[in-house]
C-alpha cells in the first residue's frame, strides 16, 4: 500500500497526495445539509404509512394543525395541482417520481401520507403524533418470486393494472444453436442463485433545505445529493420555472452509493412546501426513515444454466433473472443480461428477465447496480465446480479471458480490450499463495475446522454512455492572481474529487497541486454534469478537466510568448512558471502571465486572446471503459457460533493508471466491506404482511471494525484507449466483486459437508440452518 506523500513539484498524477477535503472534515467544519441554517427556517417531518397495502379511509390533520409551533400540515389534497412533471434526464419521461404524498391508497410501509412543517423538528414530530389516519388494509404482495404470477393482488391496481410485472422479457437465445449446445454438452449444471435485500446506508441520511424567495421567485436548494445539476433541472420541470431561477449546492455529502442519484418524492414535498410558505424548509430524515423509505437494493434471483464440455470449456450460459423493484422504484433499470458471461470466453448466451412490483420499498441504484449478473455467474461457476468435483480455480483458469485473447466480442455484444481477467486471477492467487492455502485447508478439515476460499472475477462497465451520463464539462481558469480554479459538474460524496481532479489539472498545466482549487457541487459556476455515479469521474470528468486545462495552457503559452518575445514552441511550463526550454533563467511566473493577460490586456496584440480560461465538454471515444478485477476471500466458520469470519481478503484489479493510488485503494476497500456486510450481516427483512423488521441499526447490522479483515490490494495496470489519461473507472468494483467472493468462500468452507451455498445472506442463523439440514450440526 502506498504512503501519502505531500507536494512534489511537477508530477502529481500517480501520487497519493494529501486530500484537499480532509482539513475541514477532520476539524468539524464540513458543511452537510443539516449544518446549514437560514433565518426563518422551518423543519419538516412526514407521517408515513405503517400498512403495506391499503386504502386511506380517513385522514384528520386538524389537531396537528392546531398545535403551537406548527406552521402547516399538508396532505395530497393540498399539493394536488401545484407541480409539473417529475422526471430525471437520465431515466426519461416514462419514469415519473411518484406523487409527493399518497393519493388515496398506500403501497408500502413508509410511504409518506402527510407533511408537517413546524418551528422545530421536535414540534413537527409532536404534530405527526396528532394526525389520525385510518387505512383499510389489503393483502400485501411481498414475495417477488411469486408476485408476477399473482393476478389477484395487484400492487398498482389503482392505476388500472392487472399484473405485477413492470417489465417481462421472455427467454431470448442470443445464439441460434443454444438448445443444441445444451443438448450435446458433456455436463449441464443448473442452479438458482438468490441474493438478499440490502441497502446503501450512507452515514448521512437524506436531507434537503429548500428556500423560496417570493418576489424574486427564486428557489435555493441545499441537498444531500449526488448531482446538483440534475436536481436543478428536475425542480425546474417540477416547479415550472426556468433553471436560471434555481440554485442547488451540496458542499459536503455524507455518502450516497447510488441512493442519492435521483430526487425523492419527499424532497418534492419539501420544495413545494417552501414555495407555498415563502420560507426556508429543512427536512433531514432520521435513520429509521432512511432504512425504511430510502431506496432498497439487490434482492434478485437468477436460475443459471451452464453447458460445460468434457475438457471443462464453458460453451454456453443462460439466466432467468427476476428482480424485485418494490412499489415505487426510484431506479429500477438494473438488469443487464449482456454482462452475464463477464470476463469469460463463453461464446453463447440466453436470458429471460422480469422486474416485479411488490408492496415493499422501491428499488434504487446501489454501487454496481447490475452486479447481480456477476453474483449469479460466479456462484454458479462454484456450484458447477462442486457438482463436477473439480477445482473452481481451475475451471476459471480454463475459461477466463487473458490479455492475449483480446479483442474479444462477447455473445452479448460487448467488445473487450485492455482488460486482464486471467492476469488478475493469477496475481491474486500469488498474493494468497494458493497452493499453501489448499494445503492449510486440508489440514483444517482434518481438524474439523471450516475454512473456505471464494473467488470472484468480473468486468465492470465503467463510464457508460447511457444518455446524459456520456459527457462531463469543465471550466479551467488561471485567476488574476495566477492561481488556478477548475469548475466541474460533479457532486463528490466521498470520492475525493477536489483532490484527484486538482492532480490532473496541476500536471496538465504544469503548476503546483496546492495552487489548484476545484469547485464542484454548485450549479451557478459549474458546467452541467449528470451526477457523480457509475464509476465515471476519472475517465469523463478527468477527460474534461484535462482538455480544458490544455486549452488554458495554450492561452498561457500565447500570452507568455508575447511577453517574453519567444516562440510558443520554445516554451514549457513546470512548477508554476513558463520558461524557455533550455534557458530556465528566462521565465515568467503564472502570476506574471496573469498580469499580462488581465491587467495589461491592452498591450496584447489582436491574435492573442484575452483571459486565461476555457470550457470543454468531454466524451470518451468509446463506451464503456472496461475495468476488471479478481477478488479472493478466505473465511473460517466458527462451529459453535456459526459465524463466518473473513480471514483474508485479496483484490487484484486493473483500473489502469491511478490518479491517486491511496484514493483508489480506499474506494476498493469501502466497496469490499459493503459486500462483506451484505452477505454476512446486512439483510432487510419484511414479514409476510409487508411489515419491515429491520429499521434500526440494532436489527440492520452494518460491518464494524471487529468484523473486517485487512483488505490486501494489488494492481495490474493496463491503459485504456477510451480517454487521454488511459484511466478506467473503479468506484463500484469493490462492491460488485465482494458478494460472490464472500458467498463462495462460505460455500467452499461447507462444501465437504455436502452443503451447497446458493443463497444469501449467510449470517449465523443461516449457516446454522445449513449445518442442521446437512446433519452436520
Amino acid at each position: 500500500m502506498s504512503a501519502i506523500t505531500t507536494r512534489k513539484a511537477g508530477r502529481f498524477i500517480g501520487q497519493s497526495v494529501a486530500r484537499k477535503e480532509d482539513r475541514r472534515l477532520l476539524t468539524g467544519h464540513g458543511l452537510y445539509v443539516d449544518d446549514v441554517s437560514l433565518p426563518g427556517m422551518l423543519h419538516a417531518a412526514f407521517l408515513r404509512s405503517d400498512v403495506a397495502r391499503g386504502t386511506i379511509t380517513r385522514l384528520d390533520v386538524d389537531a396537528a394543525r392546531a398545535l403551537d409551533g406548527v406552521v402547516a400540515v399538508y396532505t395530497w389534497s393540498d399539493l394536488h395541482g401545484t407541480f409539473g412533471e417529475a422526471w430525471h434526464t437520465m431515466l426519461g419521461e416514462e419514469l415519473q417520481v411518484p406523487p409527493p404524498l399518497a393519493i388515496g391508497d398506500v403501497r408500502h410501509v413508509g410511504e409518506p401520507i402527510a407533511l408537517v412543517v413546524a418551528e422545530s423538528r421536535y414540534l413537527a414530530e409532536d404534530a405527526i403524533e396528532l394526525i389520525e389516519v385510518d387505512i383499510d388494509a389489503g393483502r400485501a404482495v411481498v414475495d417477488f418470486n411469486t408476485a408476477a404470477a399473482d393476478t389477484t393482488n395487484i400492487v398498482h391496481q389503482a392505476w388500472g393494472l392487472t399484473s405485477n410485472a413492470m417489465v417481462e422479457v421472455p427467454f431470448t437465445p442470443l445464439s441460434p444453436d443454444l438448445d443444441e449446445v445444451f443438448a450435446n454438452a458433456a455436463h449441464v449444471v443448473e442452479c438458482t442463485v438468490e441474493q438478499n435485500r440490502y441497502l446503501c446506508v450512507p452515514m448521512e441520511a437524506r436531507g434537503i433545505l429548500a428556500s423560496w424567495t417570493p418576489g424574486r421567485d427564486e428557489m435555493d436548494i441545499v441537498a444531500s445529493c449526488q448531482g446538483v445539476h440534475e436536481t436543478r433541472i428536475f425542480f425546474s420541470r417540477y416547479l415550472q420555472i426556468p433553471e436560471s431561477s434555481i440554485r442547488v449546492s451540496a458542499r459536503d455529502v455524507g455518502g450516497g452509493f447510488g441512493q442519492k442519484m435521483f430526487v425523492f418524492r419527499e424532497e418534492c414535498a419539501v420544495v413545494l412546501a417552501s414555495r407555498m410558505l415563502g420560507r426556508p424548509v429543512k427536512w433531514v430524515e432520521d435513520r429509521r426513515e432512511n432504512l425504511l423509505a430510502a431506496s432498497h437494493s439487490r434482492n434478485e434471483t437468477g436460475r443459471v444454466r451452464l453447458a460445460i464440455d468434457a475438457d471443462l470449456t464453458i460453451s454456453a450460459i443462460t439466466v432467468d433473472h427476476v428482480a424485485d423493484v418494490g412499489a415505487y422504484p426510484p431506479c429500477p433499470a438494473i438488469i443487464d443480461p449482456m454482462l452475464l458471461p463477464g470476463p469469460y470466453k463463453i461464446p453463447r448466451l440466453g436470458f429471460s428477465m422480469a422486474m416485479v412490483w411488490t408492496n415493499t420499498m422501491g428499488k434504487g441504484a446501489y454501487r454496481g447496480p447490475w452486479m447481480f449478473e456477476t453474483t449469479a455467474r460466479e456462484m454458479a461457476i462454484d456450484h458447477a465446480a462442486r457438482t463436477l468435483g473439480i477445482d473452481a480455480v481451475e475451471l476459471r483458469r480454463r475459461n477466463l479471458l487473458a490479455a492475449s485473447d483480446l479483442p474479444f466480442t462477447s455473445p452479448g455484444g460487448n467488445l473487450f480490450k485492455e482488460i486482464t481477467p486471467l492476469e488478475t486471477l493469477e496475481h491474486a492467487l500469488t498474493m494468497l499463495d494458493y497452493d499453501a492455502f489448499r494445503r492449510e485447508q486440508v489440514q483444517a478439515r482434518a481438524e474439523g475446522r471450516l475454512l473456505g476460499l471464494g473467488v470472484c472475477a468480473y468486468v465492470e462497465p465503467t463510464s457508460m454512455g447511457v444518455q446524459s451520463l456520456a459527457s462531463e464539462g469543465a471550466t479551467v481558469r488561471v485567476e488574476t492572481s495566477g492561481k488556478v480554479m477548475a469548475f466541474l459538474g460533479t457532486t463528490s460524496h466521498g470520492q475525493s474529487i477536489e483532490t484527484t481532479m486538482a492532480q490532473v489539472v496541476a500536471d496538465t498545466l504544469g503548476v503546483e497541486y496546492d495552487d489548484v482549487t476545484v469547485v464542484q457541487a454548485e450549479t451557478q459556476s459549474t458546467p452541467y454534469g449528470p451526477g457523480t455515479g457509475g464509476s465515471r469521474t476519472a475517465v469523463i470528468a478527468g477527460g474534461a478537466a484535462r482538455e480544458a486545462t490544455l486549452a488554458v495552457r495554450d492561452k498561457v503559452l500565447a500570452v507568455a510568448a508575447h511577453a517574453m518575445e519567444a516562440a510558443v514552441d520554445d516554451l514549457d511550463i513546470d512548477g508554476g512558471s513558463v520558461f524557455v526550454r533550455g534557458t530556465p533563467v528566462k521565465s515568467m511566473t503564472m502570476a506574471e502571465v496573469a498580469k499580462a493577460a488581465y491587467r495589461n490586456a491592452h498591450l496584447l496584440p489582436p491574435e492573442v486572446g484575452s483571459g486565461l480560461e476555457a470550457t470543454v465538454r468531454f466524451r470518451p471515444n468509446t463506451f464503456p471503459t472496461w475495468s476488471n478485477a479478481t477478488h479472493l476471500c478466505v473465511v473460517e466458520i466458527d462451529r459453535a457460533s456459526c459465524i463466518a469470519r473473513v480471514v483474508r481478503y485479496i483484490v487484484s484489479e486493473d483500473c489502469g493508471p491511478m490518479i491517486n493510488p491511496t484514493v483508489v485503494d480506499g474506494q476498493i476497500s469501502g466497496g469490499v466491506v459493503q459486500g462483506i456486510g451484505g452477505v454476512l450481516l446486512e439483510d432487510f427483512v419484511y414479514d409476510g404482511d409487508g411489515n419491515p423488521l429491520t429499521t434500526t441499526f440494532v436489527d440492520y447490522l452494518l460491518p464494524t471494525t471487529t468484523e473486517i479483515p485487512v483488505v490486501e490490494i494489488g494492481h495490474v495496470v493496463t491503459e485504456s484507449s477510451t480517454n487521454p489519461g488511459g484511466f478506467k473507472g473503479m468506484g463500484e468494483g469493490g462492491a460488485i466483486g465482494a458478494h460472490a467472493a464472500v458467498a463462495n468462500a462460505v460455500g467452499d468452507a461447507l462444501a465437504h459437508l455436502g452443503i451447497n451455498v446458493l443463497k444469501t445472506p449467510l449470517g449465523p442463523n443461516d449457516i446454522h440452518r445449513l449445518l442442521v439440514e446437512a446433519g452436520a450440526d
Partner: protein
Amino acid sequence: MSTHLVSMTVNGIERHARVEPRKTLADFLRDDCRLTGTHLGCEHGVCGACTVMIDGRATRSCLVFAVQTEGGRVTTVEGLAPDGELNPVQAAFEAEHGLQCGFCTPGFVVSATALLERNPSPTDDEIREGLSGNLCRCTGYQGILRAVHRAAQSMGARQS
C-alpha cells in the same frame, strides 16, 4: 413545554441556554452552540457519529439530554484542534486516508482520541474493540485502523 437553564463548558467556553428537558446534548451543541461538527447518523446510540467527550469520557451525545450535562466539561471535534493545528489523531487520519465523505469522521476522531488517552499503546485488537461502536460506510475501516496505529506511534514517540 417548560424550559430549563443549562450551563456547561464546551471546548473551554462557558455556555448557558434555556432548553427543553427533552433536547439532546447533540442538538444543544448543533443548534444552540452552532457547533455542527458533531453529527447525527442514527439518533439511537449505535453509529457513534455524535461522539463527544464529557469530562474526558467518550459519550454518544444523541443519548444524553443537554440538562443531564449540567456543569459538565464537553469537548467536541471542534475543540481538538483549537489553534488550527491538527491533533495527532486528526493528522494521522489525514496521512492514512482515514476518511472519505467525512460524515463519520468527527465521531471516530473523538473516540480514537479518548481511546489513546486511556490506552496510549493499544494492540490491533484493542483498537478494533475500542472503535467498534463507530460506523463508517465509506472506508471499509482500513485507513481508520492504520490511522489509529499511526497516531499511537506518533504520540508515543512524542512522549519518549
